[in-house]
């Protein structure tokens, strides 16, 4: 069992301080919750985002906006073959080019470390995963198109690019493997010769379930089988990656400005694994970051290169990717080929689920590449259902393509898509309504906490209630009339529905440590009360669109009863913030937000002591309400600001009992994952002549637990839906058999545009607050991208079947060409 049981519905929760268990109130107290909504400030309100003003006026500060005195520019020589032996790299002409100040090759980094995988996985047979080295610059071999083997530093960017072309590289092209099937074929060329295989691991989850699952499927009255592809995606944060390295010769300090979702993690990787720069001599700053979606979690070689170059030159070195480089080198997402079987009774009762998946991890193991297809995927394979037998087999395979890693949803979209597509197919085979089939098998509210056969413990949920809400907001009852109207116009209309569950709020460190994580997954916050009563809250989470600067102050303001405007969020600078793990996996509020609560509670506890002293009362009698400390049962009170001032001007202060100052740090390590769930409905129209699919309606009902800022939560869902619909209908990252990237720009990689999507109906009112974190929150960042692809494809299949076409599946993206081809069969 993964996770820790907690008292369901308990009004209190626990944490540890100085090894003592502390019981504390939940924020907000659940009985106040409904009364408090809607609100105009604090938890549950939707204040306008304060960060918007700078973004709307061109005053943001993204990495490429930063220019430093003496700055030079880096450009990279990148492989144009997918697999090649580097025979020689002659840089002498390039070095003599105008403006060139340095040239680096893989040779320069042979003695430094490699960029590691953050999670250790064992194969079914107990053998360790294969871990090829990932160098700063390729040495010996290039392994994918775009793999950098040299870099030029010059006075201007154009000079650097000109000189890159003058590097004479003798690279002998070798046969490439671009797909898992090719990489596992007999005689396939090896991506990394030294590990003697292209298979990183062959993982079973849970291996003990294997025999029982096989037996259950063999004996089942009905088995639905589906083979599907979870299409490879390019994250495409609109801001391309960028890094500026700087080195101070006077102090020996390095500074890296970079496009990161997690500056401390990046610093740790550079310090402990790649460059050996002492952590105390390296500051990593992720300023405004223009979206991440996973792709900016990871440490990339360009970051190490600009630091090494800055040290060598004693000058700042800047690199900014152009979009073509982003396509070639950002970690991609998804890329699974799966066979899933769902065994049921004739009445639709689920008996077993079995999957076999090939996961393409690309040419090198990116930092989360080994956990994404395993523990973020296989553990979710029971979905929202009671299904007694589940077994997942997954082989991770190296290919001559860009690395593949977590992209919005990360493993969970792949699990959801497989489950929810096979259920839909099963419903059609058994002639059971797809919603009824799901409801029949849902885990019921009285079954929580519920331990699945794939070892998660879902703490709470109410999947029927969410489905009820979906039927309401999606007006599913009105579908028949809408279909008739579409048919009258010569169009086919389909309705697709699915549920999803995800595990986020990543993650309990003890648990993930047992499972192979090489890091802890707590987060941290420091709350600093200034002498005048305003606050700075330093957080380990990083905001690159999520609105932390607005939402986190809502929590603190609610707890202290003060104006949010007095609270500033500081993030993204390792020299200012405590060691937190950053933002991904829908974890910021559930984990870092919990740390903010804990630190604020410590502040309140200390402030109460000070207030008690000021009013000569017992600490136990002090109450904090609306920013004022009062003594219960009296009219004595002191304002928040007076207490803050007293902390920093500690005259007549019980210095023997209370330290001056008012600043507290808390680290929060969650007791379990959080389990957001939802039910989504998509209605499409298909043009039977061209095969073009248009999304006419989309409804999303989610259970995120408590919601701090509904406006931001809805925006997160909208964005996830855009990406999920993009995956289902448009986006496709394609390499040819030689490993050349065919979809290498927006000319061929179809990004969703405004006219590809409708207005969405979203709702998060059917909520079951998380039982084990103080805010009762679950996380909302990835839900839309996880939940939406199956409903789109389910809807297309429904539309085509309504038109008499015997189509049971079309792989994503469901492009006009594919739909038309399916209709011709």
């Amino acid at each position, binding site marked *: 069992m993964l996770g820790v049981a907690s008292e369901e519905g308990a009004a209190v929760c626990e944490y540890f301080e100085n090894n003592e268990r502390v019981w504390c109130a939940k924020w907000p107290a659940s009985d106040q919750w409904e009364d408090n909504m809607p609100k105009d400030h604090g938890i549950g309100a939707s204040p306008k985002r304060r960060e918007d003003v700078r973004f709307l006026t061109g005053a943001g500060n993204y990495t490429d906006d930063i220019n430093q005195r003496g700055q030079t520019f880096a450009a990279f020589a990148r492989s144009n073959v997918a697999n090649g032996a580097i025979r020689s790299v002659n840089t002498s002409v390039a070095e003599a080019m105008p403006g060139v100040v340095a040239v680096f090759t893989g040779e320069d980094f042979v003695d430094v470390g490699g960029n590691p995988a953050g999670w250790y996985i064992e194969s079914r047979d107990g053998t360790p995963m294969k871990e090829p080295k990932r160098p700063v610059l390729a040495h010996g071999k290039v392994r994918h198109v775009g793999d950098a083997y040299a870099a030029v530093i010059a006075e201007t960017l154009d000079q650097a690019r000109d000189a890159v072309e003058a590097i004479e590289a003798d690279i002998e092209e070798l046969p490439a493997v671009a797909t898992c099937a090719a990489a596992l074929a007999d005689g396939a060329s090896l991506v990394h010769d030294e590990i003697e295989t292209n298979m990183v691991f062959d993982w079973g989850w849970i291996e003990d379930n294997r025999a029982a699952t096989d037996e259950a499927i063999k004996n089942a009255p009905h088995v639905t089988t589906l083979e599907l592809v979870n299409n490879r995606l390019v994250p495409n944060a609109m801001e391309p990656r960028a890094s500026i390295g700087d080195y101070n010769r006077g102090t020996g300090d390095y500074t890296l400005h970079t496009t990161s979702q997690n500056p401390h993690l990046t610093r740790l990787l550079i310090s402990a694994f790649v460059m050996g720069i002492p952590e105390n001599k390296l500051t990593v700053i992720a300023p405004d970051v223009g979206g991440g979606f996973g792709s900016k979690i990871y440490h990339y070689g360009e970051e190490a290169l600009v630091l090494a170059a800055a040290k060598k030159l004693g000058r700042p070195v800047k690199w900014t990717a152009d979009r073509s480089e982003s396509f070639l080198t950002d970690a991609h997402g998804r890329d699974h080929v799966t066979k899933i079987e769902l065994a049921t009774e004739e009445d639709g009762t689920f008996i077993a689920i079995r999957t076999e998946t090939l996961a393409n991890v690309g040419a090198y193991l990116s930092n989360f590449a080994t956990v994404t297809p395993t523990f973020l995927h296989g553990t979710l394979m029971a979905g929202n259902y009671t299904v007694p037998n589940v077994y997942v087999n997954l082989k991770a395979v190296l290919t001559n393509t860009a690395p593949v890693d977590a992209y919005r949803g990360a493993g969970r979209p792949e699990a959801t898509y497989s489950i929810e597509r096979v259920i839909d197919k099963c419903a059609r085979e058994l002639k059971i309504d797809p919603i009824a089939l799901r409801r029949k098998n849902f885990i019921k509210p009285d079954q929580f906490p519920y331990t699945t056969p794939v070892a998660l413990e879902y703490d709470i949920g109410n999947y029927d209630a969410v489905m009820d809400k979906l039927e309401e907001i999606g007006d599913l009852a009105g579908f028949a009339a809408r279909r008739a109207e579409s048919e009258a116009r010569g169009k086919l209309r389909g309705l697709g529905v699915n549920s999803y569950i995800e595990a986020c709020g990543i993650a309990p460190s003890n648990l993930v440590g047992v499972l192979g994580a090489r890091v802890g997954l707590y987060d941290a916050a420091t709350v600093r009360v200034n002498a005048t009563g305003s606050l700075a809250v330093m957080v380990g989470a990083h905001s690159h669109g999520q609105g932390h600067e607005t939402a986190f102050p809502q929590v603190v303001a609610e707890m202290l009863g003060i104006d949010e405007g007095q609270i500033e969020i500081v993030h993204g600078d390792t020299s200012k913030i405590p060691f937190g793990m950053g933002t991904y996996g829908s974890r910021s509020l559930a984990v870092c937000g919990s740390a903010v609560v804990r630190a604020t509670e410590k502040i309140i506890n200390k402030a109460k002591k000070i207030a008690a002293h000021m009013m000569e009362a017992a600490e136990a009698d002090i109450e904090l309400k609306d920013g004022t400390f009062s003594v219960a049962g009296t009219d004595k009170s002191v304002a928040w600001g007076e207490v803050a001032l007293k902390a920093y001007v500690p005259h007549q202060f019980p210095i023997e009992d209370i330290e001056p100052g008012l600043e507290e740090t808390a680290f929060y390590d969650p007791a379990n994952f959080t389990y957001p769930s939802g039910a989504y409905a998509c209605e499409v129209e298909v043009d039977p*002549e061209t*095969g*073009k699919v248009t999304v006419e309606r989309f409804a999303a009902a989610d259970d995120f637990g408590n919601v701090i800022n509904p406006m931001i939560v809805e925006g997160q869902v909208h964005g996830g839906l855009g990406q999920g619909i993009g995956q289902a209908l*448009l986006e496709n990252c394609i390499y040819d058999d030689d490993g050349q990237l065919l979809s290498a720009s*927006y000319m061929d990689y*179809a990004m969703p545009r405004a006219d590809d999507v409708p207005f969405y109906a979203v709702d998060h009112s059917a909520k079951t607050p998380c039982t084990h974190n103080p805010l009762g929150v679950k996380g909302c960042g990835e839900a839309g991208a996880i939940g939406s692809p199956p409903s789109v494809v389910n809807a297309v299949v429904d539309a085509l079947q309504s038109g008499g076409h015997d189509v049971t599946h079309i792989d994503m993206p469901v492009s*006009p060409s594919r739909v038309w081809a399916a209709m011709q069969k």
Partner: protein
Amino acid sequence: MYNFEFEKPGSIADAVAALGSEDAQALGGGQTLIPTLKQRLAAPSKLVSLTGIAEMQGVCMDDDGRMCIGAVTSHEDVAAQGASYAALADLAGNIGDPAVRARGTIGGSLANNDPSACYPAGALASGATIVTNSREIAADDYFQGMFTTALEEGEIITDVKFPVPEAANYQKFEQPASRFALVGVFVAKFADGVRVAVTGASEEGVHRWAAAEEALSANFSADAVPDAPDADGMIADLHGTSAYRAHLVAVLTRRAVAACG
């Protein structure tokens, strides 16, 4: 980009002179050329901007009833000023996106002859005349395969003359990423017959669909459009097979005819 000199002459004569230097290249709105230069796929010594030449700007009607469009007239301006040939104005108003339409020019599009561009279909179906600094070229002679035209080195398009059909319509089925035409069909019905031009579909670039022209000249109705042309020689790529493109040619031709009313 590689560096180059930049020149912006004010007259056709000066532009022709400027283009006389080795590896000089004409620049229209730059909406295709500049991205190409960014990829370092071309290395002109000099770019000669034509957008400052007043005599190459604007839309008017000539004495023969043809709509004449100056070569550096933007798509936006053709869309706004081309009411005399509404089907062509509509075509211009759906190229790319608004910002691209504000810069992109008809001359640039025709000189480039991208196999998925819209204007070549409009020019070929209309039987337009491409006027250059030195001669007039019939559209039937001008388009010579993907990215290939009858233009000589240093020759620049100055304007394009479009006979206005009795009825016409352009149907574009967009490639979902680039929003260029996956297939586009322009149908133009003249008193002496129907012309049908297809873009996006063929490996030979823009071309006329003779079978459809013959059938529609005899009976101008959607029902008369022949079955899909042979898929041999049609483009096959990430976005569609050759059979799909061939199918779309027929679908879009029917729709264009139907839209002619």
